[in-house]
């Protein structure tokens, strides 16, 4: 069953077109990649799903509900969670507060929050040492991890992650990707925006390629990885992935 499905969605920023006529679906337990060049509109798709921008046209259906009638905050409470571009952690809250707030926002009780926090910390022991510290003081990579951990606190049904590998050490990239694979296997739908396309194709089932705000290609990742157009535009001769060299 599709967790999210967009059909013919068009978003404008004032007079500027962000994306147009985008249709895509993510099913339960599926990991889907959204790739494209800078400014292609990937983040715009995520923002529209979260409700941070209002689509001008098109339908958005989340688990059978018409999203357009649902306020952004409510969407999150129903399990539609985004780890946004640029981390957007709360720098002047402690790491613990950052995490707890995510649990609070989705209506978790105190006990539930604690339990959830425990689980997240097990996954990212790195954060455990830093709980009482202000999030803004963390290193860049640590902040990125916090942002992802915060997304996990919200118990997503659909998790959208925007460039999660940015600033992460190779080993940490692995943990994060392992996590995505794991939660997908538990039934969560994952929509992944990733600059590092090679890396993305390693874990995703399907992918959509955005160009200038429009979906120009889509299909199973394994097929796309061999598509000459994709290779030329995104994988390139240099093979941007650290993995490719070995």
């Amino acid at each position, binding site marked *: 069953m599709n967790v999210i499905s967009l059909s013919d969605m068009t978003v404008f920023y004032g007079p500027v077109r962000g994306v147009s006529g985008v249709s895509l679906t993510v099913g339960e337990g599926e990991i889907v990649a959204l790739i494209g060049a800078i400014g292609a509109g990937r983040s715009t798709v995520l923002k529209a799903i979260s409700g941070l921008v209002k689509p001008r046209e098109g339908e958005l259906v989340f688990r059978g509900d018409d999203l357009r009638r649902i306020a952004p905050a*409510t969407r999150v409470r129903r399990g539609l969670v985004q780890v946004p571009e640029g981390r957007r952690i709360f720098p002047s*809250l402690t790491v613990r507060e950052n995490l707890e707030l995510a649990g609070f926002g989705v209506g978790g009780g105190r006990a539930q929050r604690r339990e959830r926090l425990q689980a997240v910390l097990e996954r990212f022991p790195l954060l455990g040492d830093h709980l009482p510290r202000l999030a803004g003081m963390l290193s860049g990579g640590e902040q990125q991890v916090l942002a992802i951990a915060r997304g996990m606190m919200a118990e997503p049904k659909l998790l959208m992650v925007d460039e999660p590998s940015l600033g992460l050490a190779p080993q940490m990239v692995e943990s994060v990707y392992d996590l995505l694979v794991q939660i997908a296997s538990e039934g969560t739908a994952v929509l992944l925006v990733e600059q590092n396309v090679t890396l993305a194709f390693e874990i995703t089932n399907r992918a959509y390629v955005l160009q200038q705000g429009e979906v120009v290609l889509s299909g199973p990742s394994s097929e796309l990885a061999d598509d000459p157009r994709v290779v030329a535009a995104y994988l390139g001769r240099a093979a941007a992935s650290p993995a490719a060299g070995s």
Partner: protein
Amino acid sequence: MSWNVVFPDIVAGLFLGAFLALIAVGYSMVYGILRLINFAHGDFYMAAAFVSYAVLGAVTVGTKVNWGNVIWVGLVTMIAGGVLAVCVERLVYRPMSRAAILSLMIAALGVSQILENGVLNIPSWGSNYLPYPVTPPSNGFSVASVHYTWTQLGIVVIAVVLILAVYWIVNHTMLGTAMRAVAQDRAATTLMGINTDRIISLVFFIGGALAGAAAVMASLYYGQINYLMGFSIGLQAFTAAVLGGIGSVAGAAIGGLMLGILESVGTGLFGAQWALMFAFGALVLTLWVRPTGLLGERVGQRV
């Protein structure tokens, strides 16, 4: 200079400080969440005073205090102050949510003009100094040969209780954490599943309500109200909020008390004309030593 001379000054400062603290806490919260120097905040206080004047006037016969009346009128005034603040936020500040802080501040000045001159243009209020409908009794107690009334004591106690309540909400509940989160990143807070508009409204409501409470207490204590009563106390409250550390409830409260005491002691030491200078001198010194106010501000910023 002896203790007997300074002690009454300190106590006197506490009374002024209690009002300042109440207003400053609201100021500080609004400031904290929108980074807005809300010049209209003092006028929320003023407008609330007029509301309480009208309501209390309508239910009071003579000038004898009926404490039951005062209490419910107080509650009504707090709600009125809160609602006024929320309305201003909705109508003016919210449409400007992407504007520069300075532009917001100027809009706040506009609101302040509207509120003040609005009251000025209401015929039966106008520019008059209106005597408050009730006068509290003057019985009380004496310390160091200075007489204090029970009303004064009660006012301070209520102020402290209100501030503690707000302190608890802001610092010990997730709602308070959410307020601080909104201040830092609104869109990200939405992504946590939190309705940020509602949080901002709540902050304005609390700020307005505290100003309302201060209005009733100050009107009882000073006995008269006027359409300009809010501006200068608002400015002092703003100063107190900064002195305490922007966004910090406890800081604002302590800042308010401190400013009250400084002005009062400064008057005692140097005469009233130099009290303000003394208070600001102390402010500069404080900020020199602690650049983010008494209780500091948690700033999570690094390079």
